[in-house]
């Protein structure tokens, strides 16, 4: 018997329901509005009163309206066809909805049930399997999409049969398993999993071993993010958070990208719709959209679904990770998610924590970040979920609860700085405040030694020191005046400017400069550092400034030219001439 109830109170999207039976925390229910039914989630129970957050507008809802509980938590539907889809926060397919406007209570199937997939079996009758083990494979775009023993299956199973290679739709029973009690259990290509629960079903979660290339110099070289790592990008509005995130989405070295547009601008998502189908994945040469899933709960869409959107996105990533794929999850912005929590907490009249956020905000955030990571699957293969979230600190002040909580959870920190953005020094990632904890991992240091060149991390540290020293020198120059400091101060300052202008700054809108592969980063980085090694002897600071401006100009022209093209080599020669014209 399903539990039912009646609405007894409404404040915006928080509805109180008097229930006639058992209800579970996070259980879903439908509120009957006569013409349509609204989905809601239990967030608090007190006696026979359940507080539910409605995933839709509650306009025209009345006390006394009937409610039916469905005995399930919010679940993601997982199967072939998730890639290149566009979902809302509850995983409704936005592309199959009719009409220009979203209609309340319209719920669409996340997966095309009719499409046929080329299935190839992997498991054989008699195989012993557990949850997340691979039974077969279909080709989704160019990716091998494994059909697995559903994550929800407990205990071990014996494969009774697997269908022969052939074309099937997702609802076809592709395997029959026998459980420990000797009962037959059918498996199709689709499974469901509650989004707020982490997907397990792997052997172990080791420390990250290698870096994920993004083609963005200030990340890959200065503060690389590990495959399976976590990072966050806080910054005031107008500092280029979204541009940077899109650049990572376009260029990130991953098999699957899930972008969660969480409470952000609709036009930014439209930009993805418009651009991604045109763009080519730099690693495989295939269309970017084929490896991308978009979860889109923009700022004007219902607040409760905004909270769900990040969980839905993470669950999809975990699903692909279990296939041995490398996934990248980008969430823009986790602050909007935190604000959704705040709105509900406020309506429930809970005692607030700092800035009226719920007191368990920090725990919720770190719990979410912990779902990412590299894993070793039961069959020894590896998969990874790399997570990068943006944070929109109120007033650009990093001393606020969401930023502080995230800082405790994430391993990379890319601080976007208003001052750099004002000067159009993009990406406005502050080279001194930002950090990557992964540079301290011996595994990663060794990986970089092998992948790029021996002693790479030392070179990076050296460059950071030059930048830091340059800033100090600049402060001194500003205090004491151009003539009040020794020439070496000017030289140190301009060497840091050289690194900034020619390496850290990167034009995300230039077709060539936008993507800088590691090989090219190495070339430019070594070239620039070798210039910084030279001890110049300038007569006056005007000469120093003028000379470095010339160097910067030539190096920037190199950045704008195709790597190792005739133009590039021409500027490289020009640079050498410029350097030898000075000499030691």
């Amino acid at each position, binding site marked *: 018997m399903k539990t039912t109830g009646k609405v007894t109170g409404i404040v915006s999207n928080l509805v109180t329901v008097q229930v006639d039976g058992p209800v579970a925390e996070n259980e879903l229910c439908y509120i009957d509005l006569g013409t349509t039914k609204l989905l809601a989630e239990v967030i608090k129970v007190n006696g026979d009163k359940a507080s539910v957050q409605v995933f839709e507008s509650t306009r025209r809802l009345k006390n006394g309206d009937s409610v039916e509980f469905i005995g399930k938590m919010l679940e993601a539907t997982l199967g072939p066809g998730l890639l290149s889809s566009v979902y809302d926060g509850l995983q409704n397919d936005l592309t199959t909805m009719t009409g220009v406007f979203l209609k309340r209570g319209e719920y669409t199937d996340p997966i095309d049930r009719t499409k046929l997939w080329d299935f190839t079996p992997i498991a054989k009758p008699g195989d012993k399997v557990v949850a997340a083990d691979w039974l077969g494979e279909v080709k989704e775009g160019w990716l091998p999409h494994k059909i697995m023993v559903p994550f929800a299956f407990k205990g071990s199973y014996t494969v009774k049969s697997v269908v022969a290679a052939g074309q099937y739709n997702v609802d076809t029973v592709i395997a029959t398993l026998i459980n420990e009690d000797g009962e037959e259990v059918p498996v199709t290509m689709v499974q469901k999993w509650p989004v707020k629960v982490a997907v397990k079903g792997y052997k172990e979660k080791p420390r990250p071993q290698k870096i994920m290339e993004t083609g963005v110099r200030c990340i890959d070289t200065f503060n690389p993010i590990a495959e399976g790592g976590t990072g966050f990008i806080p910054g005031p509005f107008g500092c280029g958070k979204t541009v940077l995130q899109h650049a990572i989405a376009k260029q990130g070295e991953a098999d699957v990208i899930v972008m969660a547009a969480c409470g952000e601008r609709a036009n930014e*998502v*439209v930009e993805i719709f418009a651009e991604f189908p045109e763009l080519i994945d730099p690693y495989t040469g295939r269309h970017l959209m084929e490896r991308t899933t978009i979860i*889109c709960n923009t700022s004007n869409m219902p607040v409760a679904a905004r909270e769900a959107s990040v969980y839905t996105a993470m669950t999809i990533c975990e699903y692909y990770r279990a296939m041995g794929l490398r996934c990248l999850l980008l969430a823009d912005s986790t602050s909007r998610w935190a604000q959704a929590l705040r709105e509900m907490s406020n309506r429930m009249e809970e005692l607030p924590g700092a800035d*009226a956020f719920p007191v368990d905000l920090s725990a919720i955030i770190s719990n979410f970040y912990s779902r990412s990571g590299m894993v070793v699957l039961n069959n020894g293969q590896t998969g990874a979920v790399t997570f990068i979230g943006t944070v929109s600190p109120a007033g650009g002040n990093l001393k606020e609860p969401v930023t502080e909580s995230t800082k405790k959870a994430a391993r990379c920190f890319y601080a976007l700085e208003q001052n750099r953005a004002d000067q159009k020094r993009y990406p406005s990632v502050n080279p001194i405040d930002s950090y990557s904890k992964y540079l301290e991992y011996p595994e990663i240091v060794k990986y970089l030694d092998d992948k790029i060149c021996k002693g790479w991390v030392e070179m990076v540290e050296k460059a950071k020191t030059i930048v830091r020293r340059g800033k100090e020198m600049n402060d001194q120059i500003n205090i004491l005046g151009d003539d009040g400091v020794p020439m070496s101060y000017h030289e140190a300052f301009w060497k840091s400017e050289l690194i900034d202008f020619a390496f850290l700054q990167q034009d995300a809108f230039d077709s060539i400069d936008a993507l800088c592969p590691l090989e090219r980063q190495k070339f430019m980085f070594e070239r620039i550092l070798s210039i910084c090694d030279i001890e110049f002897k300038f007569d006056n600071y*005007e000469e120093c400034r003028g000379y470095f*401006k010339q160097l910067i100009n030539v190096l920037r022209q190199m950045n704008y030219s195709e790597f190792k093209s005739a133009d590039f080599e021409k500027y490289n020669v020009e640079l050498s001439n410029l350097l030898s014209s000075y000499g030691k």
Partner: protein
Amino acid sequence: MANKAYQKVYTKLDAITKATVTLKAAGVSNDELATVAGRLAQVVKTKGETVTLQVFAGTEGVPTNAEVSFMGNPPVLKVSEQLSGRFFNAYGQPIDDGPEVEGEIREIGGPSVNPYRRKQPSEIIPTGIAGIDLNNTLVSGQKIPFFADPDQPYNKVMAEVALRADVDKIILGGMGLSNDDYLFFRHEFEAAGALDKIVSFVNTTEEPPVERLLIPDMALAAAEYFAVDKNQKVLVLLTDMTLYADALSIVSNRMDQIPSKDSMPGSLYSDLAKIYEKAVQLPDGGSITIIAVTTLNDGDITHAIPDNTGYITEGQLFLRADSDTGKVIIDPFRSLSRLKQLVQGKKTREDHSQVMNASVRLYADAQNAKTKLENGFDLSDYDLRCLEYAKDYARKLLSIDVNITITETLDTAWQLFAKHFSPAETGIKQVFIDKYWPNK
């Protein structure tokens, strides 16, 4: 708003605050309208039999035995071509002595556009103001506010931009407009001979603040009618959104909600987003562009209202008085149009974005030089040239009284570069230098 015969009339209020009343009533739906002692009110909370109403006109003089009757529907607007050229109050009633509008009844504050059905904005809205067109190019379907101190001429600039823009309809949503400003808009629109393409919803300072909460939804319901039903290009002007947010905080405060930053309600972000996200480029050619005004307190953009606004809107136009030239300028550092790259170099000349970046970078160098000067240091030759450039740049391009085409703007910028700098100092791509550097 006469009571219909079958409606039950309640006459016992349990509680009254300055903005809300509470009573026991049955069968009430969320967001439903009601009248309290003849004043319009809306359901904001129900708890068992207890219903809380926000009274738009305020509760001064409302007795505990006031008549309350429920209307059974959320706020609505009658939409038709008859809206054109008319002035309305916050309830959608005419204030220009004209007749009632006949038309289809639409709920205001309706649903969102499916993001997947949106089109990418791609049409430039030239304003003639070089500080906007060069550095912060506007695009139809965009939402962008002016951030300005109360003493800046923001309403004047907004009216100019609106009248120069090539759009089918202009919808004014005035919240807490002073009577003088209201008459200014009326006069500007009439003088431009553009009245027939303008619809205005106005709440002046003489009227109760909570009424303002209806203005944006009314204006946008009208905008959606023209953009969606008639496929027109609609420009919506909202001034002043700070006063709108203040009204939100009044209601939330009266309902005993826990305030977050700057005593604003915790839902401020979502409340503002619901309005601004109505800006859209529709698949069938219609569009809604929103230009708003958010007044600041002494340039403080970290206050919750401009801060949340900045995270929602696609940039902001920052008005500032320039002490060097005595002009009001569009501040190139704090201003931003997030959609500019959709049109720059595509709908404008190829060198647009490089010219913009160089011009702003050099202006930043001038600011550094100015700091040095203020600290009493000697200036280098480059510093001096930067300072001269900054004055020219402010006067000829950033000032809001400039009215030139975009190509003229770019040419002017190149002339300023050539006057003050060498090509290498601008850092512009060589191909553009070769093509556009003026020959002296």
